[in-house]
């Protein structure tokens, strides 16, 4: 599962696509943690763009949880945006929307992070 990272001002938007389950979550976790660590180190926010994510299992949720913990530990911000219905339901049932701020669009998520990020998103 390849992560597509785009930078908007000091915010990093990471596109997550496909199915995230037991079989591929470990590679995903390593990639995601590296992004989160770098971004938090720069004092920026991370937005996970889940528009391409079809399914996430409990193992996948654990990766999100670990990323959230790391961001918190480094005083960074992390949010998710653009959830497909299936993933939205999983987030709802598992109450992961208590772990992440959930936004309808990437722009909303960026706007919540910083004005510069939203401006950079608008310009792009």
């Amino acid at each position, binding site marked *: 599962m390849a992560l597509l990272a785009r930078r908007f001002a000091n915010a990093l938007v990471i596109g997550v696509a496909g199915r995230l389950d037991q079989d591929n979550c470990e590679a995903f976790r390593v990639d995601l943690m590296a992004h989160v660590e770098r971004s938090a180190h720069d004092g920026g926010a991370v937005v996970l763009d889940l528009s391409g994510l079809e399914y996430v299992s409990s193992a996948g949720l654990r990766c999100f949880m*670990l990323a959230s913990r790391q961001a918190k530990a480094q005083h960074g911000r992390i949010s998710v945006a653009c959830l497909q219905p299936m993933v939205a339901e999983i987030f709802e*049932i598992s109450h992961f929307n208590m772990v992440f701020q959930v936004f309808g669009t990437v722009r909303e998520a960026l706007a919540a992070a910083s004005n510069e990020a939203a401006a950079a998103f608008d310009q792009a």
Partner: protein
Amino acid sequence: MTIDEKALSTHGQWPWPRDRMADLVARLAAARPLVIGVDIFFPEPDRFSPAVLAERIEGRAPGIAASLRGMPSNDALFGKALALVPSVLGVAGLASTDPRFAGPPRSPPVRFLDGAGEAIRAYPGHLRNVPEIDAGAAGHGLYSIDLEGGVARRLQMLGRFDQAVVPTLAVEMIRIALAAPLTVAPSAGGTIELRFGDYAVPAQPDGRAYVRYGRSDPGRFVSAASVLDGSFDVSQLEGKLVLVGFTGLGLADLVATPLGETVFGVENHAQAAEAILEGQFLRRIALAPRIEAALLIAFGLGLFVFIPRSNAVRSAAVLVAGIVALLGAGALAFAQAGLLFDPAGPALGAMAVFGVMQAGSLAEAQRQRQQLREQAARMAGELDAAKRIQMGLLPDPAEVFAGEGRVDVAALLEPARTVGGDFYDCFLLDGRRLFFVVADVSGKGLPASLFMASVKSILKSAALTVEGSVGGILARAQDEIRRENPESLFVTALAGVLDLETGELEYANAGHEPAWSHVPQGRPERLDASGGPPLCVLDVYSYPSTRRTLQRGEWLLALSDGATEAMNERKEFFGTERLRTSLGWLGDEADAKVIVNRVRDDVRRFSGAAEAADDLTLLAIRWNGPAAEL
């Protein structure tokens, strides 16, 4: 000049009287050839000589006998004819002494440089011609071809007879034509060289040489009959080397050459003479066997190193390429330098190495497969044991609630793998309160199952010790689990306490799939999904409790996401709506066992051949009412 079928049919059967041979040689001699070589032996006196005839007619015609006796013998005539031109007669090496020829044959003086002749093959005995004929010869040539596997590959260039050293017929003919002395000198690569005039013939230390044979050429044969009847113009032979031999089939002096042809012995000598004149000799230098051995070792070692690091197909390709290269190099050395190498040895050796190595790696592969099988069996055995232990941790509701009329409980857990991360639990906290929980540990397999065992006991202990809300039980359990959770796993759980006397239900949800309820004459209803995140996701969280009062005959179904997220081969989920439909078909009278089996069957039927991705856990509870009203 050959004594062929035509000559035999014209002049009678062999042996011819020697005076006819004398006539023949004299006719050849008239053409003044350079040298005549005779590839025929005359070891016994001619029985047609006048003296021999005289003996036979002595009694009958003494006068004729006396005059016959006064005539020269046929052998003497033949010897005289041979003396007309420089001629070479044969000496054949024998393995034992022939009493007729005791002393060594006549031989030319040979100079040996630096001990070059020491290893020349020595013959204990020999065969040559009767002295009268022999007297006419200017020299002697060795007639000895060692047949190797029936093929004349090497010609004995020099042979030693006691003190005498006799060169082969072709060498001696050319040497006499040149009137040059013969020198034997050491040569490159441990070989020797026969030098005479401007010619140098390479040979092996034992005197043998590889002749580069050409194709048979019938055009250079002249029948003895044509010479005797004058139809052949002998003047063509002037200044030539002339060989006299047999080609008559009945006399069968035949040898096979390495080119696969069967040629007459006399042509073999002719080809040897040509080879000498054209310098067409093949060398097999003394180092050749060592070079072949070195190639064998190098190739063998190469394969030895390469094969274990490569697959069989690539190894075979390397083997074939190596053998082709060896054969090519051998052919190139032969064509370009006249060097003889035998690539068959290294090639066969390499094939043997290849075979042995492949057999070895096959055996190794089989051993490893066997080991893997054993390991897999052991793992499977351990996993089966783990499964039995894990399943043993789960209570059997029929046993736990045996004789309990107020409630009917049934449960089911089918792990996706041998062991899983789901679990359920149900037990009475006291005489009337039933605690139940369905939980799912993140992850699957052995790690999840170990964590699950720990979580289950923590939850049970929290349920038994915490006085107060179900949410409080979950919060307490979370505190405990967090302390023993190095892998940061989390647990979704739906826990509840049902008062069996009042039907009051209190439940709390930690990120788990909501439960379903069904009231008599009602429709299945998904209970509200409020609650909190899974245990151990947030450090501190107060799980809210939800209350509901059950009707008599109402049933609940708690389940894991293995049901709703079960997938079919088209990657579709079973989903909430299919579950609702499935539950809708169950009547009011359905007992707990029927409910769990029904849902399980529907989920499995939906999944079809698709492998179950997650554990499936179902727990059904049907409240039948307080004890007093049963």
